[in-house]
């Protein structure tokens, strides 16, 4: 099992009150799964994603990620898990504007301490996989939205992580580019990569093998009738 969430609660402190954002969330994701989490804005899906991505900590409950108990991990260990086991894809790509595509893809390898030459090789391979070998040395400003997202996917996958975590990966893309991204996700999943994707678009979520629905901090299996 890659992800095992048990009775996860998350409160945010607003003034003097604790506002519950996640209420007793239970979720387990097996290796090789392709899961979409849907929900309206303010439902807590970003918070859930931050917890799964080891960027945030739950208020209570246990979270086992790939056999390690996240709640007892130190800051340094969390950095290592994010670096080696999780690949992030964001809605707004989050590429470093002053660095070329290949340099952006190299970043996680840099933090993992991979030597320079090897790093460049691995980054090139990852870019070839998303079909951008010809735009390797382009700066993000010279790339289209879809191309930027593909660079971001290459960056997420360059360390061969256990989990690909995508937050509205098609949110800033036109339909065609979005379809391309979905195709890449499908291929990765076919290769055995576990994917958890957050979206509020039904058509995008339909690409996943399994869909969950979150509303007011409560997570449930998607039955088809929920409003978004």
């Amino acid at each position: 099992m890659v992800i095992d969430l048990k009775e996860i609660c998350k409160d945010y402190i607003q003034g003097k009150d604790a506002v519950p954002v996640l209420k007793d969330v239970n979720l387990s994701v097996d290796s090789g799964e392709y899961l979409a989490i849907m929900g309206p804005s303010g439902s807590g899906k970003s918070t859930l994603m931050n917890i799964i991505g080891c960027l945030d900590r739950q208020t209570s409950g246990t979270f086992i990620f790939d056999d390690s108990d996240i709640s007892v991990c130190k800051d340094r260990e969390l950095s290592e898990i994010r670096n080696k086991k999780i690949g992030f894809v964001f809605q707004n790509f989050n590429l470093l504007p002053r660095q070329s595509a290949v340099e952006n893809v190299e970043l996680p390898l840099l933090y993992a301490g991979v030597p320079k030459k090897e790093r460049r090789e691995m980054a090139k391979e990852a870019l070839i996989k998303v079909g951008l070998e010809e735009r390797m040395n382009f700066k993000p400003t010279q790339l289209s939205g879809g191309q930027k997202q593909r660079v971001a996917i290459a960056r997420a996958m360059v360390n061969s992580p256990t989990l690909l975590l995508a937050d509205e990966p098609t949110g800033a893309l036109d339909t065609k580019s979005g379809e391309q991204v979905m195709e890449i996700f499908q291929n990765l999943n076919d290769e055995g990569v576990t994917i958890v994707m957050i979206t509020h678009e039904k058509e995008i979520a339909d690409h996943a093998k399994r869909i969950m629905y979150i509303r007011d901090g409560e997570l449930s299996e998607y039955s088809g009738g929920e409003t978004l």
Partner: protein
Amino acid sequence: MFENIILSFKGILSHKVRSLLTMLGIIIGIAAIIAIVSTIKGTNEQIKNNLIGAGNNTVKIALYRGDGQMDLQYESVPEGVSVIPDEVKKQIKDSDKIKSVSLYRQRSYVDSLYYMNTALNGGSVLGIDEDYFDTTGYKIKSGKGFGKREFTGSVKTAIIDTTAATGLFGGDDPIGKIIDISGEPFKIIGVAVQNSKFEPVINNYEDYQLYNQENSSGQVFIPINSWSVIFKYDEPQNCIIQASDTDSMTKAGKEAVDILNGRLTVSEDSGIKYKSEDQLERAKSLQKLSDSTNTLVICIAGISLLVGGIGVMNIMLVSVTERTREIGLKKALGARKKIILGQFLTEAAVLTSIGGIIGIIAGIILAQLISKFADVPVAISGISIAVSVIFSMAVGIVFGLIPSVKAANLDPIDALRYE
């Protein structure tokens, strides 16, 4: 580390104007310090060269009572002080730090020195031995020097220096003329001039005052054997030595003084002693004076560096805020605190180091301009340049610390969400 430096350069180049303005405080501070230090060093070297080079490593030894030099024109020879015999002169010369030794007698400001009716007021008369000219760097310009006859017998011949020649004879040739010293006639056989290496360099009135304690309105040299014709026969001599090199001047002077003092049989409380007047010591005390006045100026320039450092901190804080998203992303990708901290510290250090280097160049140019327009000598010191680079780097690290820690401690979710 190396990659961080390259990244920092890229970052700095992408904000050229801002980076330059940030560096300005550092540039001004470092430039000021380099210019000031160069000027101080130049002045110090000039003092040293002028004073020490001027004497060509000579050290004068004279008899003192307490702190004042004894003037035998106005007082009698004190008991316990005797004429220095040749053996003692040889003994002094035996030191390997001493190149040559001369014994001489001197009257400063002699008022009865005439040629016909022209008086040489304020001129000095020196009774010299055969080594005096060699030791002090005089050479015969016209006429001839003293020979064996003068140094063995008691011959009334004299050599005058060019100042005295002008004072007494105007443009006329002094050779063969008879001058009158305290009522005794002396025949001038030569005119002597001091080797330029021995002459002090005089650039302005202050220098003139500084070096001119020795120079009177002219010097008249007579053989030491003829001294008793006009003055007291048992007058103890002064001694002048030439040290083998500049650095051993002080020691050579001390050795000679010790030998001479060992011969004195004066009572303890008379305070009579031989003392050496060491130009090296004098140069040092003059340098100290110029150093202390300039320490204050350096402190003021240091404040400018401090202000520059605060400017760097301010801009780094802005930069951290601006790059909050970037920091968040890097953290999400697995960058540890250490990496973020290192990145920002390197950037601050690179920024201030570039500022330091520009400051050094500006400082050198400034120093050259000062030397050109204010006519002050400058010497660029390698140490001050090295210290400046290290110091400016340190300013970057110290003042970059707060912004870097702030960046390293950013919460990745807050950072990613930041717009």
